[in-house]
Structures are given as C-alpha cells and as structure tokens.
C-alpha cells in the first residue's frame, strides 16, 4: 500500500521490554503458579497466550515465570482458573516504572 511503502522495522519483544525501566525485586516474586492446576485447567496455555510481556513460557511441561518482565496489567489473573495463579502487585516502588505511560 502507499506505493510500496515498507513495513516498520520489526521490534522483538525483548527489545521493547528493554526500552522500559524496571526496578526488580530480587527478594520476592509477585507471581506464583500452581503447576498442577496450570496443566489440568488449561490456565498455563491461556496465560502464555494473553500476557503481552511474555512472562510465561512452557518448558518440559512446566510453566516458567519471568516475573521481572511483568507489565503489571493483571490480564493473566482474569483468565486463570481459581487457585492456578497467585498474582499481586509487586512491593511498593518495585516493578515496571513508566517514564511515559
């Protein structure tokens, strides 16, 4: 379209996340998954699909959580089956710190 205009240079998810400022809480994760419930309820697949930050990946039939990349939207929590996911906000000051918003 537009006389062969090219597409925008692709950014990868990690490049986009890399542009953000995060204050990582090294002591505690604000996300905990119940592996068994994630498998049996389909929660694992759902949270992998909806998370815009790619926090959740699957490795060896287990959900791996990269909580440091969390954008704190809470979308995973609303698609999770009861008990499959514990998600709260990081402690005060920690987590993503928007400079734009």
């Amino acid at each position, binding site marked *: *379209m537009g006389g062969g205009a*090219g597409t925008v240079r692709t*950014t990868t998810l990690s490049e986009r996340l890399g542009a*953000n400022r995060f204050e990582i809480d090294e002591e505690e994760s604000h996300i905990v998954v119940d592996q068994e419930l994630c498998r049996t309820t389909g929660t694992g697949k759902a949270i992998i699909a909806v*998370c815009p930050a*790619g926090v959740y990946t699957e490795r060896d039939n287990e959900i791996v959580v990269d909580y440091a990349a969390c954008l704190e939207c809470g979308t995973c929590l609303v*698609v999770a089956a009861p008990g499959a996911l514990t998600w709260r*906000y990081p402690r*005060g000051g920690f987590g993503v*710190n928007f400079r734009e918003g």
Partner: protein
Amino acid sequence: MTTQGGEPDFDVIVVGAGPAGSVTAYRLAQQGLSVVLIERGDAPGAMNLSGGILYGRVLDTVFPGFADEAPVERQITRHVTTFLTPDSAVSLDYRSDRLSEPLDAVTVLRAKFDPWLAGKAEGAGVFLMPGVRVDSVLTETGPDGRPTVVGVQAGDDQPRARVVVAADGVNSFLARGVGLRGKDPTNHLAVGVKAVVKLPRSVIEDRFGLTGNQGAAHAIVGDCTLGIGGGFLYTNTDSLSLGVVLRLDDLVRSGRMAVEVFEHFLEHPGLAPYLHDVKIREYGSHLVAEGGYDMVGALAMNGMVLVGEAAGLTINSGLTVRRMDLAIGSAIAAADAVAKAIGTGDVTEAGLAGYRRRLEESFVMQDMRTYARAPKFLERSGMYRAYGELATDLFHDMFALDGIPRKHLLAVARGAFKRSPVSVRQLMSDGWAGVRAL
C-alpha cells in the same frame, strides 16, 4: 483483617494516585479534611498507563484552563476512523476547529500528567505517601453488625481513617478483598497493549497534517488486529502512542498470542506511512474492563467507596475507550458525598449513599447507561473485518478503471455486497443496532 479500637489518623485515606485518587483527595482537602494519598509507585504515574486520550471537559471544571498549565501533549482536532484490510484502507476523516474551542480531548502520557495532578492535591494540603503498597483494608464489625472499613494494611503499618477511598485501578484488590467486586467474565475484559515511539515534532506534524499543538487520533479496525478488537494511533508532542485493545474471550478463542497481534499491528503496511523510522521508547499494557453499565456493582460499604476503574467505570464505544474522564467525574461525586458523610458523622453505607445518587445524576452514569448496549453490539463480529473488506471493495470498484465498462453506483454496490459475507439485511440490522447502542 479485623482490628479493634483506635482513633483515626486521618479523615480519609485515598489509595492510588491516578486521576480518580488525586482528584478525590484534592476535593476532600479543599473541604478542610485531612487526607493521605497512598501510591504504590515511587512517584505518581510510574505505575499508570492509558491509551492516551483524556476527554478534558470534566477536569476543566475542577481546574479551569488546566490544559494550558498541565503537561498535556496535544489537543485532538482530527479524528480518523480507518477500516483496514491486508492491502487497502478506507478512512473517515473528521477535523474541526470546534474540537479545540472549547477544549475536548487531549493526549496525555500518564508518567508526566499524573504527577501534576497529584501535585495539585498536595498543594491543597493532601499528604502524599509514594512507594507504599496497600495490601488490604482493615475492617471491624460496625454498629449494624456488618464489616466496616476502618483503615488499611500497608506493610507493617495500619493507618486508620473514617473513610477509605479505593482508587486502586481496574484490578482493585481492595474492592475484591471485601467482596465489593467479584471476578469479571472475560467477555467484559480486554487487554490493551501499547508502545510509545519517538518521532521529531516536525515529522509528526508533517505526517499527520497538524500544526502547533494540534493532535490526531486514529482508530483502526480490521486486518491490523487480525479482526480481534481494534487499534489506535495517537499523536503526542514528540512521540506517538499506538497499540491494540483485544477482548480476552475473542483473543483466547482465536488461538493467537497478544504479542503476535500487537506485532502484526505494528508491522501492518497500512500503518507504515506513519511509523517508519520510529524509535521504541516504552512498551506497556493495561487491563480494560469494558463491561459497561452491567459491570458497575456496589460502590460503597461501611467506611469505604470505590472510584474510577476500581468501580468498573469504563466505556468502550467501539472506537474509543473512556476511563479518565469517568474517573474524574466519579472522584467529584465521591469527594462531595464523603465530605458530607463525615460532616454528619454517618460514614456507614447508608451515610455514603449520596455518592451513588450524585454519580447517577452526573454525566458518568448517564453515559454509562447510554452506552449500556455497546458491549453487546461490539460482540456482533461483522464490525471489525467483513465491513472493512466490503468498504474497500466498493471504493475499489468506484475508483479503479480496469478497462471493464463502468456501471452505475448502485450496480457497483450490489456487486460489492454479492462478494461480501455481509448482506444488505445484516448491514441494516447492524446499523440499526449500532445507532441504538452507540
């Protein structure tokens, strides 16, 4: 948690320094009450994100002429609605000076705008406490035998107040903790995925046809989001806010990943004229509760009220999502009702009932009711894909001279309909439903 006894440390604790919290705190302090505004971020706005459009009329009633003083980006004077297919676009382009005088919509970046608003509250005497996460509310058994909120738990601290205002956003753990809100169904929820990209000011003005502090808001539906939800592209002073809003039930059903849909949007050739050579500045996401009027439940209990998104106040009209103006409207209603309740010494649910009444009388609930059918209308899937194809097909037949003898417009339209899955009957039915819902 249940505690007993103790005098309140403040008249009011407001949790969350977004527009809802800061305006509530500001108005309460103005009426002489002692107010603490507790914010999880190290600074107000650090945890906050929105698509970027603030309908400013209501804030202008609180701070007249705010747009001249506050760090707003651009005044929206041009609204473009685009139906996109893989290789074509049909746009409706509305531009008017009437959109800037009186002020209508401005773009904002929350990490810059929210500190200004919180600063206004501080200036009125509000005690701002940043970097503190409120974990839950403290309750005691009230005189009516029901739970009464008497303060909050924040780490090891338990500040107490006559009234707690939960302005803690769409996920409102405070409202959920006391059962004021349950779990929302996924057809009431959407995820917004957004990027802010840098572009020189003059380039923005050239590409979007703007001068001075004029701004453009593009709403985009169709192929750019693979038919799931819609996209937006807004101009800031020297950056663009762009992204997608995807309804969770549609997203899960599609088998796509949110990241994948966002990247498809970013790379869509239809957007390339606006987005080439941009530099990524920030990436974020936000949960959008778009259940409309049906989603607003109880707004008060003994000692506590909900404002803004925590109260479920969001309108998705299909082309724009409104949150901040409703948040500010609810803040005005809540602050005035809370001040009155404290004045009379009755902060029970009954004493705080004036909040609901004021809200119902204001534009907030009137608009929520006006758009009550919008969520159902937007479930009619034709909106986002088939209509774009129909429209681009129609315009192609009108404008492309391919050697085949021309037909009258009516015949062209009939042909386009024949090729489209959309029937004239369905178009009229959707059109009628749309007129009634929006």
